[in-house]
């Protein structure tokens, strides 16, 4: 085969040269390398890191496609141009070309900037530090456009990606060494640096900010409301969405986080392929349900009066928390990041439970920004090594006890 031989010759030519990592990254993308084992086991399993990361991307693709349609749907709906969905998941109002065009126009640039800038930084570091380009960013680059508001300016995203990859990952030594989830580091950077673009009731639907500016400029137009379910609840407003809307995903929100059913599908795929940790996903859900039940209990015990600003979110039925906001997306795709999560199986139960528990806690008590899952995961990323430490101490103590019994 011509291409194979040509690339092989180029590889030999670039060997030990400065640009070798950059070339190899592209080469190994096209071809599984011809490397053979030289120590230890002579045969190896079929999986490599590329395959693992690719599996996560496959799990994310339905969310991305849905996100594109939803971007257009929310835009057209808010502008009063179309009717709301009536016919379940496959409603004809939703899956239209018009919706997709808006989505493509708004979401694809986010994807391109995320991958372009992020991989650019990765290649740069690989060349400088003379190591191969690691695959971690393939997933991060797909996560980032899915967890930001649709109208995020591209330059902001670019800056955030650079910050996230450099400070969140490369300074620790690259993929596998980072403490915080890079995608969430990027989002947290955006959130704290540009809060007006990351929260409030104007950023979640394409065109809402623009329209608001026009109105402020004196134009006679109806304002577009782009409030998320959580935002509405935090302010104690009446909900206009049904539970099935929330479960299927016909609600405003970050690009890819809205459709709980597709996230559930992705979760099942990750668990089936043994790539995602079912322990973390399950324990997070349990943690969230427990916290939700506690709040429901507080409400039903009348310890809080209806006037309280926390009342609305506290009285939200406990299991609704799973399908509103970014909880499901965060738990399935970001809490399970193996590098930043707990690394022991026992630790994963604790880590996941606390993520679910704290997510709902933050959600209820932080009405200015009622999205707890990002901060909960980042917080638990920091504590994951501590959890592992105590789990491993258990194993060490068992071993010491055995020794004591023996010598006693």
């Amino acid at each position, binding site marked *: 085969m011509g291409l*194979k031989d040509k*690339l092989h010759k180029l590889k030999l030519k670039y060997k030990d040269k400065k640009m070798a990592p950059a070339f190899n990254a592209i080469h*190994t*993308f*096209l*071809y*599984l*390398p*011809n*490397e*053979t*084992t*030289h*120590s*230890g*086991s*002579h*045969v*190896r*399993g*079929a*999986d*490599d*890191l*590329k*395959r*693992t990361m*690719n*599996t996560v991307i496959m799990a994310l693709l339905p969310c991305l496609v849905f996100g594109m349609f939803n971007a257009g749907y929310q835009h057209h709906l808010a502008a009063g141009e179309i009717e709301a969905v009536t016919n379940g998941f496959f409603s004809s109002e939703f899956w239209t070309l018009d919706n997709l065009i808006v989505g493509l126009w708004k979401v694809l640039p986010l994807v391109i900037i995320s991958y372009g800038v992020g991989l650019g930084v990765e290649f740069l570091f690989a060349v400088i530090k003379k190591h*191969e380009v*690691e*695959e*971690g960013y393939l997933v991060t680059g797909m996560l980032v456009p899915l967890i930001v508001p649709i109208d995020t300016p591209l330059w902001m995203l670019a800056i955030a990606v650079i910050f996230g990859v450099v400070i969140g990952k490369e300074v620790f*030594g*690259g*993929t*596998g*060494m980072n403490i915080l989830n890079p995608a969430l580091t990027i989002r947290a950077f955006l959130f704290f640096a540009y809060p007006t673009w990351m929260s409030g009731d104007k950023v979640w639907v394409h065109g809402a900010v623009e329209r608001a500016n026009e109105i402020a400029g004196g134009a006679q137009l109806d304002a577009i409301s782009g409030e998320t379910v959580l935002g509405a609840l935090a302010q104690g407003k009446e909900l206009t969405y049904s539970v099935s809307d929330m479960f299927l995903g016909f609600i405003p929100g970050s690009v890819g986080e809205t459709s709980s059913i597709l996230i559930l599908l992705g979760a099942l795929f990750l668990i*089936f*392929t*043994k*790539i995602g*940790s079912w*322990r973390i996903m399950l324990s997070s859900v349990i943690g969230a349900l427990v916290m939700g039940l506690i709040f429901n209990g507080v409400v039903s015990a009348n310890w809080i009066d209806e006037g309280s600003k926390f009342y609305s979110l506290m009285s939200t039925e406990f299991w609704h928390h799973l399908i509103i906001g970014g909880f499901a997306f965060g738990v399935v795709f970001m809490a399970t990041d*193996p*590098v930043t*999560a707990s*690394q*022991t*199986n026992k630790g*994963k139960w604790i880590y996941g439970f606390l993520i679910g528990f704290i997510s709902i806690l933050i959600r209820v008590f932080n009405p200015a920004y009622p999205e707890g899952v990002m901060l909960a995961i980042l917080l638990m990323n920091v504590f994951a090594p501590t959890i592992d430490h105590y789990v*491993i101490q258990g*194993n*060490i103590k*068992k*071993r*010491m006890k*055995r*020794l004591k019994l*023996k010598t006693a």
Partner: protein
Amino acid sequence: MSKDIRIRKGLDIKLVGEAEKVTVDATKSNVYAIKPSDFHGIVPKVVAKQGTEVKAGEPLFYSKSNERMLFPSPVSGEIVEIVRGAKRKILAFKILGDKEQKYADFGIKDVNSMNGDAVKTHLLESGCWPFIKQRPYDVIANPDVAPKAIFISGYTTAPLAADSDYVLAGKEKELQTAVTALSKLTEGEVHVSIGKNANSPLGALNNVTKHSVSGPHPAGNVSVQIANIDPINKGETVWVVNPQDLIIIGELLLTGKFNAERIVALGGSSVKKPKYFKTKIGSEVSSIVYDSGVNDESNIRVISGDVLTGENVKPDGYLGYYHNTITVIPEGDDYEFFGWNKPVFNKISPSRALTFSWLFPNKKYELTANTNGEHRAFVVTGSYENVFPLDIYPLQLLKACAVNDLDAMEQLGMYEVAPEDFALTEFICVSKQPHQEIIREGLDLMLKEIG
């Protein structure tokens, strides 16, 4: 007190080319080689210089750290070459075998009347000592430390490895003599594990504690059995002996001769007719490999040992001192278009990420020596535990070794493991990290720093 050991975690790697249970005499090797690198950590001091004649069982060299530890020639003949590498390091002793084998006479012994010291001295003098290895550190046993027990694993689970039950058949007398001798070396017990439904000659032995083992690889690894029978604590030493080496020890005691004869399994998908061969330690692998022909001769990897722990000896190499398996598989040094994302049916995978080995649990595979990916940092967690039956955190122990953290290595159970126990974690490692090498280096560091 006998135990029934059932191992659940693990992975049986099923490969094409299992040796048929037929034994033929191998073509006689011209030159035999003994490689000091087979004896990990031993610095050789030459006894038999180039050009001298040795009898089978006469020492070629002794250990620099313990001059009582002798390493014998497997055959009689002339030392034709002592191969040296960088810094004059000895790589191999090459012996041109005599047509008529002459054996050094070590005298017929009655083991029942011998005491521990006499057994020890006899094994050291006759060069049989290197067959006894110790845990911790997985090196040749230190004769000055008394072990708390001796373990023998007669259960084979490694892919394509020689079946103990088959190669030991008919050697009951030698085996019994050897274990009786070994039982004098420890105040504890001699533990012998055999497969649950196996018809092993080891099952008939006296003076030992027998255990039955079942489950996937690495159930046959002696570390797994030790952990289930009598785990090693800090400060304790246990000895382990491969069952096929018991035959040589037994024969030495019964006849006074060091007979390095061994039944070796030849397997692997590149071998046309895999079967068993009778040959000697150190013989040329080419005397066995080409007997019935190999497929695609230009693209083979010849391994002395099994595919998980063996050594790449090349077609002109020699059978390793401890090996009774030779495996020949395709080298597989070729590119594969989009190999990292297309569905895979012809390789084994612990996941289901478009890999379909989970659908065919009994299919036999033709794996090559390709790594199926490049070396990466540790990323994935929780997968090693599924194939690692010891009560040890494998990832954490590997990381402790990688950063030379002696305290952590000790606390996490380094005394209980050998590199071979990390062969399966290495096999499934998504990051293609060299686990066995990491553990070997960690053990060496501990041996040097702690002793």
